[in-house]
Structures are given as C-alpha cells and as structure tokens.
C-alpha cells in the first residue's frame, strides 16, 4: 500500500496520520526521498512511528544518534544529518515505551525544535508571498487578462467573467500553494508553541 502526504506540514499531524495506518495492522517499509511518499506492508505486530526533529549534526554525532535510538529498539526509516526530520519506527511496547522523550525538559525541547523547524520551513514561502503581494499578482487586474473586462456591462460581462474564471484560478494556483504553505507552517508553529507552554 502506498500513501502520499500532500499538505500535512504539521509534523505532529503527519505522525498521527502515519500511526493511524500502523494501528490498522501495517508497518512502513519505505519512505521516499522526498519524504512525502510512504510504502506500507501488512504485519501481524503492532508498530509505532515517531518523527524526531534535530538540529543539523556532524557525521560522528549522527552516527551516535542513530546507534543510540537503535539500541532502544527503534529502526531508522528516513532522514539525513541535515534533514531536521527523522523517521523512527518500532514494535509497540506500550504507551510509555513508545515515546522518544521521557521527561519535561526534553519534551519541551522537542517542541522547541519543531518550532524552529516550522519557522525555517515557512521562511521561503513567506518571502515569496510578500513578493507576490508586492507585484500585485493577486489583484483582479492581473488575474483576468481579457482586455476591458471590467468595463463590460450586463450579460456580456458575466459571460466573459465566467469564461475567464477557470484560467484565473489556474493562474492563482501556484501563488495559493505558496501562501497556503506559509499559513500552514505558521499555524503549525503556534500549535507547537501552545504545546510547549503546556508541558
């Protein structure tokens, strides 16, 4: 079974989404390098997946990091020294043993890493959004290219308007993805911050 993660920018939501499949008797066998595609396989054991978030590590530290998690029974699915996000899976051993963090200090720190990660993720989209607004890409004049559209009257206007709308939406699609990503990653930031303050 294959699943693709499209717009789940929030890491905790992504983890929940993945664990939903694992609870139905699957385990993850592969995460594609773009980290949005997951391959699942039926299994008789209950698995759990966790997404860890770490600052970029030196080669030696990364080795130590992986080795330690593996000693605790986790197997590494996907990530790299500088990917920020690391996917870990293991056979479920109960609520407490299935966590990556066991005290307040480290849980708080985990949310802080997620906050930094979402800000880094949001930054390019945010800058692009600002450029789009500044260039007026989102104003009706630039979206509807029919000349004199806004001076037309009555049914002629509506016909031309409705004819042009699908094209305008198409033109709007890319900017919407950019702005949507900026909004989603910023809202993830605020959710992490709320959780961090609750710990």
């Amino acid at each position: 079974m294959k699943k693709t993660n499209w717009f789940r920018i929030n890491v905790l939501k992504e983890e929940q989404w993945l664990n939903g499949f694992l609870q139905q008797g699957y385990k993850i066998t592969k995460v594609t390098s773009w980290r949005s595609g997951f391959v699942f396989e039926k299994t008789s054991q209950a698995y759990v997946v966790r997404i860890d978030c770490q600052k970029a590590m030196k080669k030696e530290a990364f080795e130590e990091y992986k080795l330690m998690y593996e000693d605790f029974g986790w197997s590494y699915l996907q990530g790299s020294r500088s990917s920020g996000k690391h996917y870990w899976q293991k056979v479920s051993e109960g609520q407490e043993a299935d966590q990556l963090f066991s005290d307040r200090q480290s849980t708080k720190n985990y949310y802080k890493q997620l906050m930094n990660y979402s800000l880094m993720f949001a930054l390019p989209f945010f800058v692009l959004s600002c450029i789009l607004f500044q260039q007026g890409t989102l104003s009706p004049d630039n979206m509807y290219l029919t000349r004199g559209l806004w001076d037309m009257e009555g049914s002629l206007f509506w016909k031309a308007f409705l004819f042009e709308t699908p094209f305008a939406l198409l033109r709007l699609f890319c900017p919407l993805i950019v702005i949507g990503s900026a909004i989603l990653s910023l809202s993830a930031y605020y959710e992490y911050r709320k959780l961090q303050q609750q710990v």
Partner: protein
Amino acid sequence: MKKHPLLPLSETMHYILIALQEPLHGYAIMQKIDELSEGAVHLAAGTLYGALDNMAKYDWIEQVGLEGRRKIYHITPEGQRILAVEKARLVHLLSLY
C-alpha cells in the same frame, strides 16, 4: 552569578551523573538508572541522547573510550563539582522537613 541553564538538575540529569560514576555507554546508562531508581525512571532514547549531548557540551561528562561503535562516557571533575553543589542544596532542603 548567572544561574546555569541546567540547574537545578532535573531528575534525569541527576541520575545520569550518578550512573556515570562508572564508565558506561548510552544503553547501559539507561539500564543502570532503571536499577538505581528501582524502575521508577525509565529513560527514552531522545531524552538520553539530548541529555548526554548537553552535558558533554558543558564538560560535565566526557568520552573515555569506545565499546564497538558506542561511545563510553564518564563524569568529569566539573560534573562531580555540580553533583556536590546539588547535594548540598538537597541536604539543606531535607534538613528543613
């Protein structure tokens, strides 16, 4: 004097420094703490990794060797000093009970 960001020591950090009175690698630290705390404190992988990374950064512990590819850690004199400070604080607290 500005307070150290890791003080007062969390229960996790306390146990790790005490466990590292003898040289141990990561997983063995967790097992030792299970034993010392009589099962009350069971460290998770991320918590242990982060704590070791943090304490090595402040020179409270250091690498003293390898077992296979696993790093073996041991407490440093600075780590012992921190433990002594914490002990004095806790003894004082206890005397007030």
